[in-house]
């Protein structure tokens, strides 16, 4: 384009060409001038372009190029030297700037290129982040679904609701075509289709539990994709042309209460249910990872909810059982209480009912004895008396025993002559022994105190029973009784292992050994001897013929006296030794020389002061009432008087120990006795009822005995007589004066 400046005139045919060149140059210049302008304009606009310096350079380059082309316009015609110089300067400048620019561009263009790369990179990143955001949002959705599902599942403790809700919610969340739950059957060998989403009443399909696909699912706690053609997934007939959707199965551990272990569960759960989920057929959906995770989480939650439901069922059942048992126990307790009440009532009634007629029989038989009788009749009457006495003893025994068992029996404690107790026992038994030609020996140790404090009556009863047994079961030989004070060392007897002797200074242990040469006892039978009513099997047994109570009562008396009783025998035919130890008190030194008072006779002996003894006196005659009251007051009693049966019943209380009833003054006292007996059913509480009569005929006495009075005395009653009467009554609780 730079023409040779020799100004050689172009050939004339080239004028058109020159014209075109001229125009082109002009436009080029124009373009060259406008480009930097544009650049400047846009650079000014943008704030971030870092290469202003380059732009300036570039601008300069372009401007100079433009200038060159412009100046070129003048070189088409003859031009002066100035133009040539300007042209040359312009060209030189342009050359310099272009080279500089070219050099600079070498640095700049890679930078520019890298900007581009960065931009691409960022765009990629943004796309990736977008994708991830999408994923997170989906997961959050899923999480929400799971929470809602869990909430639904856990909001009920009913098994069916739990499972149904699970299937429904899963189906909704994951847009499933079908969702099914297979539960193990009772035998554990098959899985039964229990719940489905779409089908209303699942028919009882079963599949055997040991299919490989099922084993595969059960062996892991992840959701496993299974083939849509396997038996568990083929729930509905093929829809036809569509491809069945993908199927996933997951195990649901079931709680087995019998081997539930908190820390290992559900790892070692012994049974699983199978949950099968099917995507809609025909859609190209695939199971995404997050969907599988959702399914696994749900399966776990379902397992937990089911276990809760199972535990709840179990505890409800246990509670019902407990309630039932409580009810049964309550009933049993009430029955027992009723039985005890009934027994107590029975005993107290029998007590009274049995004793009253017995009183009558004994009293009247003894009366009969005193009349004129033929020898046969006398024999009969004696037999009647003996039998009735036996019966009374039995009744007393039974009642004593029941009181002993209740713990309501209390021993008396009074000073008595110990030696004479033994002597009396010997005297009582001697006749029987001599009839059987048995020898009876008594040996009292020299250091045995003469007087002791204790319950004389019951001690005698015990000794009598033991000695009586010894005599009863010996056919020949003899019975020996030895009594001595037991030394503490002798307690280390092997037979009384739990016995810990506790003594203080005024007590001692009495030890009595009764040895007989009788039929002996089989050592195996010894433990049952003291059991009431127990009869041993062997024909020579000790208790045959007895009422079975004697030894039992003895044992209880001995226990009450803080002692011990036992029987030794070396065997059948070798006799036996009965031994007992009881604790007795020692009377004070000062009392030993005094003879204990004997108050068995009606007389001036005996306590003269019945201080505070509450007595009720019934008489409708004012004068006699005053007189007798005076007598009783003189003796120190606390007397209440009554003038009629009604008044008597009104004022009588269990504090009154004796009621004196005047029966010849016309009061129907006999009826009153009955009513008093009804009012006080317990024998201990009942006051003694004694009739006062001036009638000396026996009919009165008989009537009194018959209606159950405890005594009868004849009027007139002097102070001395009353004194004797009271002491006799208080001791023996009965007193029938002979008429």
């Amino acid at each position, binding site marked *: 384009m730079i023409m040779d400046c020799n100004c050689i005139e172009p050939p004339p045919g080239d004028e058109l060409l020159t014209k075109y060149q001229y125009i082109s140059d002009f436009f080029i210049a124009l373009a060259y001038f406008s480009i930097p302008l544009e650049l400047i304009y846009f650079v000014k606009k943008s704030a971030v372009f870092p290469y202003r310096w380059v732009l300036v350079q570039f601008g300069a380059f372009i401007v100079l190029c433009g200038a060159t082309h412009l100046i070129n316009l003048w070189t088409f015609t003859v031009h002066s030297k100035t133009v040539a110089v300007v042209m040359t300067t312009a060209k030189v400048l342009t050359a310099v700037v272009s080279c500089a620019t070219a050099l600079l561009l070498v640095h700049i263009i890679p930078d520019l290129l890298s900007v581009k790369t960065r931009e691409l990179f960022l765009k990629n990143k943004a796309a990736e982040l977008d994708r991830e955001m999408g994923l997170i949002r989906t997961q959050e959705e899923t999480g929400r679904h799971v929470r809602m599902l869990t909430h639904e599942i856990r909001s009920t403790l009913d098994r069916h609701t739990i499972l149904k809700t699970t299937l429904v919610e899963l189906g909704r969340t994951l847009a499933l075509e079908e969702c099914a739950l297979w539960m193990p059957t009772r035998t554990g060998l098959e899985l039964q289709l229990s719940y489905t989403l779409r089908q209303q009443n699942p028919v009882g399909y079963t599949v055997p539990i040991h299919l490989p696909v099922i084993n595969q699912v059960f062996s892991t706690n992840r959701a496993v994709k299974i083939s849509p053609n396997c038996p568990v997934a083929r729930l509905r007939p093929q829809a036809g042309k569509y491809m069945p959707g993908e199927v996933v199965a997951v195990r649901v551990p079931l709680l087995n209460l019998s081997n539930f272990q908190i820390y290992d569960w559900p790892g070692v759960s012994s049974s699983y249910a199978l949950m099968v989920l099917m995507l809609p057929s025909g859609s190209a959906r695939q199971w995404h990872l997050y969907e599988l995770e959702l399914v696994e989480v749900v399966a776990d939650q379902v397992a937990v909810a089911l276990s809760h439901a199972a535990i709840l069922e179990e505890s409800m059942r246990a509670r019902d059982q407990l309630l039932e048992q409580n009810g049964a126990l309550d009933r049993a307790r009430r029955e027992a209480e009723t039985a005890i009440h009934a027994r107590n009532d029975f005993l107290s009634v029998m007590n009274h009912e049995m004793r009253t007629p017995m009183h009558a029989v004994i009293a009247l038989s003894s009366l009969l004895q005193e009349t004129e009788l033929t020898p046969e009749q006398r024999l009969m009457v004696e037999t009647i008396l003996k039998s009735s006495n036996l019966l009374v003893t039995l009744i007393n025994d039974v009642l004593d025993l029941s009181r002993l068992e209740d713990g309501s029996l209390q021993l008396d404690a009074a000073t008595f002559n110990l030696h004479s107790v033994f002597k009396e026992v010997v005297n009582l038994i001697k006749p029987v022994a001599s009839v059987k030609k048995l020898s009876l020996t008594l040996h009292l140790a020299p250091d045995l105190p003469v007087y002791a404090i204790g319950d004389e009556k019951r001690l005698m009863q015990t000794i009598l029973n033991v000695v009586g047994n010894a005599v009863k079961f010996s056919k020949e030989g003899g019975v020996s009784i030895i009594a001595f004070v037991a030394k503490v060392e002798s307690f280390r007897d092997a037979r009384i292992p739990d016995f810990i002797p506790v003594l203080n200074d005024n007590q001692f242990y009495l030890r009595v050994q009764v040895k007989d040469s009788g039929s002996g006892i089989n050592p195996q039978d010894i433990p049952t001897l003291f059991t009431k009513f127990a009869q041993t099997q062997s024909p020579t047994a000790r208790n045959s013929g007895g009422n079975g109570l004697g030894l039992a009562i003895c044992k209880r008396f001995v226990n009450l006296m803080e002692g011990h009783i036992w029987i030794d025998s070396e065997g059948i035919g070798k006799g036996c030794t009965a031994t007992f130890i009881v604790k007795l008190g020692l009377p004070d030194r000062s009392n030993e020389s005094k003879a204990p008072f004997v108050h068995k006779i009606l007389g001036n002996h005996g306590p003269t002061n019945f201080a505070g003894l509450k007595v009720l006196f019934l*008489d409708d005659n004012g*004068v*006699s009432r*005053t007189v007798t009251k005076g007598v009783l007051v*003189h003796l120190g009693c606390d007397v209440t008087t009554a003038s009629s049966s009604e008044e008597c019943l009104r004022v009588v209380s269990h504090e009154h120990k004796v009621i004196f009833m005047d029966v010849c003054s016309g009061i129907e006292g006999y009826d009153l006795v009955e009513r008093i007996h009804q009012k006080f059913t317990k024998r201990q509480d009942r006051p003694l009822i004694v009739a006062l009569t001036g009638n000396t005929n026996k009919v009165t006495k008989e009537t009194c005995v018959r209606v159950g009075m405890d005594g009868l005395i004849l009027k*007139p009653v*002097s*102070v001395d007589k009353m004194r004797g009467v009271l002491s006799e009554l208080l001791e023996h609780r009965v007193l029938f004066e002979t008429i």
Partner: protein
Amino acid sequence: MDGVVHLRKQLVDYSASLFQEGFLDDQFTQLQQLQDESNPDFVVEVVTLFFEDAERLLNEIAKALGQGSIDFKRVDAHVHQLKGSSSSIGAQRVQKVCIAFRSYCEEQNVEGCLKILQQVKEEYWLVKNKLETLFKMEQQLLAAGDS
């Protein structure tokens, strides 16, 4: 001092005579035994009670026997009461007559009853007098003893 001794002797003699004549028996002695410091007027109280009771009963008996149709059971009941009272204080003779009275009542012998009622009354007044005299003598003795 002399007077006291004399009074006492008088009392004892009089007392003894009452017993001997059968007006009083051992029961009365018993009553006397019951009298002590805690009960100083026991005998007087009881005897006064007896007087009241007896008079009431005698009136009742008289009334009952004066009826047109006599209720012997009632009469017998009253007599029985009187017998009881008199025996309580030891008025022996009264008691004996009462016993006889009762048999008349059993027989339903009106005349016998009326007659014996008179006897009872007599005996009653006798014993009442005697007892009142006895009490007066006792009081005199007490008064003399105090002075």
